[in-house]
């Protein structure tokens, strides 16, 4: 997705578009073993394919691990680290502001070293950063997918002026400099809003803004798919039997759109993680002292020459997380692809 703005390409999204699995009953040519003849739903086929994809499974395991880290962050930090906001100035060279120990102050006590200047435990901050990263990315993806699906179906199915209007809105949004815009918006947010305070406001804002700029990508794909599906014979058949519009949308079209939507949602999460990191890097993410990976990198930009490890660790955290989601997402896409032989 031109994801747009953390400077990634529109290519990513179009490359990953997957056609809806054909109407039930299409014979599956790339089938597994042919023991007894049994009916297999497209989902079953996809599941057998996914289980054979080692890279995708590896990605899935890492994702699972990260989710557990995020859920149990306080426990992990309690066992292996120090409170994330605690200063350890005794670990810092008062003259240069860099960690005293070699390798960024890595020791059995500080597993990933300490932050320059104030000596906070990098391990704890990375662990807590997982929470922000996953929460924002997943929630924003859900938001974008729901909005994009609803508006995309409406545009594709009803056509006419509704389609024209929604398509224009999507065009304008895709031409908008998203990153710039988000920073501008986040920077003028008040400190408390609707009962949320400090970091809560920022997190909510990040979710809404990233999700809001994401929906046109989903919307475009869903609209296209709906357009090609709505004149299929089985839709006509339902119509001739007297089915109403809402019934057709819900029972005939939506099930056939689930596959491309699933693929898109999984591949949107890594993009969102990068966007969140980029925003934090530019100072528009969660507010300090709440830990986030992008923000650590933006601190590191002034110190990385003297203390490279403090830059490498959060960078690797982002890289591993995004890579895992991408591997898993690619696997899901290949598994759900009805042409599937990739």
């Amino acid at each position, binding site marked *: 997705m031109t994801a747009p703005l953390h400077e990634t390409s529109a290519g990513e999204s179009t490359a990953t578009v997957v056609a809806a699995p054909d109407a039930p009953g299409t014979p599956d040519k790339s089938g597994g073993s042919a023991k007894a003849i049994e009916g297999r739903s497209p989902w079953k086929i996809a599941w057998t394919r996914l289980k054979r994809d080692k890279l995708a499974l590896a990605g899935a395991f890492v994702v699972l691990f990260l989710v557990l880290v995020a859920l149990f962050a306080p426990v992990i930090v309690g066992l292996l680290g120090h409170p994330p906001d605690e200063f350890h100035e005794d670990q810092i060279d008062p003259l240069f502001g860099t960690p005293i120990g070699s390798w960024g102050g890595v020791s059995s006590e500080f597993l990933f070293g300490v932050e320059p200047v104030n000596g906070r435990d990098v391990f704890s901050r990375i662990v807590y950063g997982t929470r922000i990263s996953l929460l924002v990315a997943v929630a924003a993806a859900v938001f974008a997918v729901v909005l994009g699906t609803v508006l995309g179906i409406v545009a594709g199915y009803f056509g006419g002026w509704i389609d024209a209007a929604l398509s224009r809105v999507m065009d304008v949004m*895709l031409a908008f400099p998203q990153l710039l815009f988000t920073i501008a918006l986040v920077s003028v947010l008040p400190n408390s809003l609707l009962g949320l305070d400090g970091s809560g406001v920022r997190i909510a804002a990040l979710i809404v803004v990233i999700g809001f700029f994401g929906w046109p990508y989903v919307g475009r794909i869903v609209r296209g798919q709906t357009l090609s599906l709505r004149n299929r014979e089985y839709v006509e058949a339902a119509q001739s039997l007297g089915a109403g519009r809402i019934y057709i949308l819900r029972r005939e079209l939506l099930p056939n759109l689930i596959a491309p939507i699933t693929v898109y949602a999984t591949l949107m999460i890594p993009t969102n993680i990068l966007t969140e990191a980029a925003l934090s890097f530019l100072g528009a993410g969660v507010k300090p002292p709440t830990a986030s990976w992008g923000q650590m990198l933006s601190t590191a930009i002034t110190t990385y020459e003297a203390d490279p490890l403090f830059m490498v660790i959060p*960078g690797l955290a982002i890289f591993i997380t*995004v890579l895992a989601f991408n591997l898993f997402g690619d696997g899901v896409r290949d598994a759900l692809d009805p042409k599937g032989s990739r």
Partner: protein
Amino acid sequence: MLAYIVRRLFAVVAMLLVVTLVTLSIFFLIPKMTGSDPAAMFVGKQADPAAIEAVRQKLGLDEPLLVQFWHFVSGIFVGRDYTGGGDTIHCAAPCFGYSFRSEQDVWSMLVEAFPVTLSMVIGAAVLWLVLGVSTGVVSALKRGTVIDRVAMITALSGVSLPIFFTAMLAMLVFRTQLDWVDATYVPLSESFGGWFGGLLLPWVTLAFLYAAMYARLTRATMLEVLGEDYIRTARAKGLPESVVLGKHAMRSTMTPILTIFGMDLGALVGGAILTETAFSLHGLGALAIRGVNERDLPLILAVTLITAACVVVANLVVDLLYAVIDPRVRLA
């Protein structure tokens, strides 16, 4: 054809007006919501209310939204006069107003920043297009081999790396440790070597990310195209493989890539914010960040508009090129 171009140009202008209006209204509403006053910002912290009021009138900040919109848009085409407190400042067309902070002419700031961004983006684009497309084609043709797997895993890693991290790594290795390059921007007019050396790291960093994306896209598209009937037909009628691939397959493969290339190029020229921040280049992206951090409305408005314009115009050019590349496309 001509009618098509004219129609599209109208759409482009309409779209840019909408983008301007939306940006303006957001920054018109935000001061009201948060209680920060643009006029007070222009004058400075310790200004007396009378001075602020004078500035507000001079800049037209007390006008209703649509009037401000009209002044801004007409200023771009015919220039604009700021009258207030007895004297008049004429801002020649294309007038994007004056920065609230530095009181500099925004247009001259844009003119200064533009070559930096343009040099960076064009250089990187050449690199990534060549690298990305050729890797993708080779991968598709050698599908399933070790070459394909290595290329695709590298590409997937490439798209999973945040660019500001790659940028810092590149600087750490090639500038701090090895001391190969300088990585400070020197205008092309001053010295070619300095320009080239200063931009080498940004080019490579930016191109790595995009080449990875283009390799993935090219491979996927190429594989799809190779499965088409007309490729089988071409082979069946005995055309040499070089013609089948070079002429028949490449044409259809390039069509979607060109679309994305246009959009990416437009978006990047409008502001490669992250790359410019990481390499401390003073291009449009850096200008945008400065505008946002200093709540400098004219600056934000100008960069937003330029970015949107680049994207929209790039899309138009791509659509026109379609007709050249793909004979199936007829413009009407």
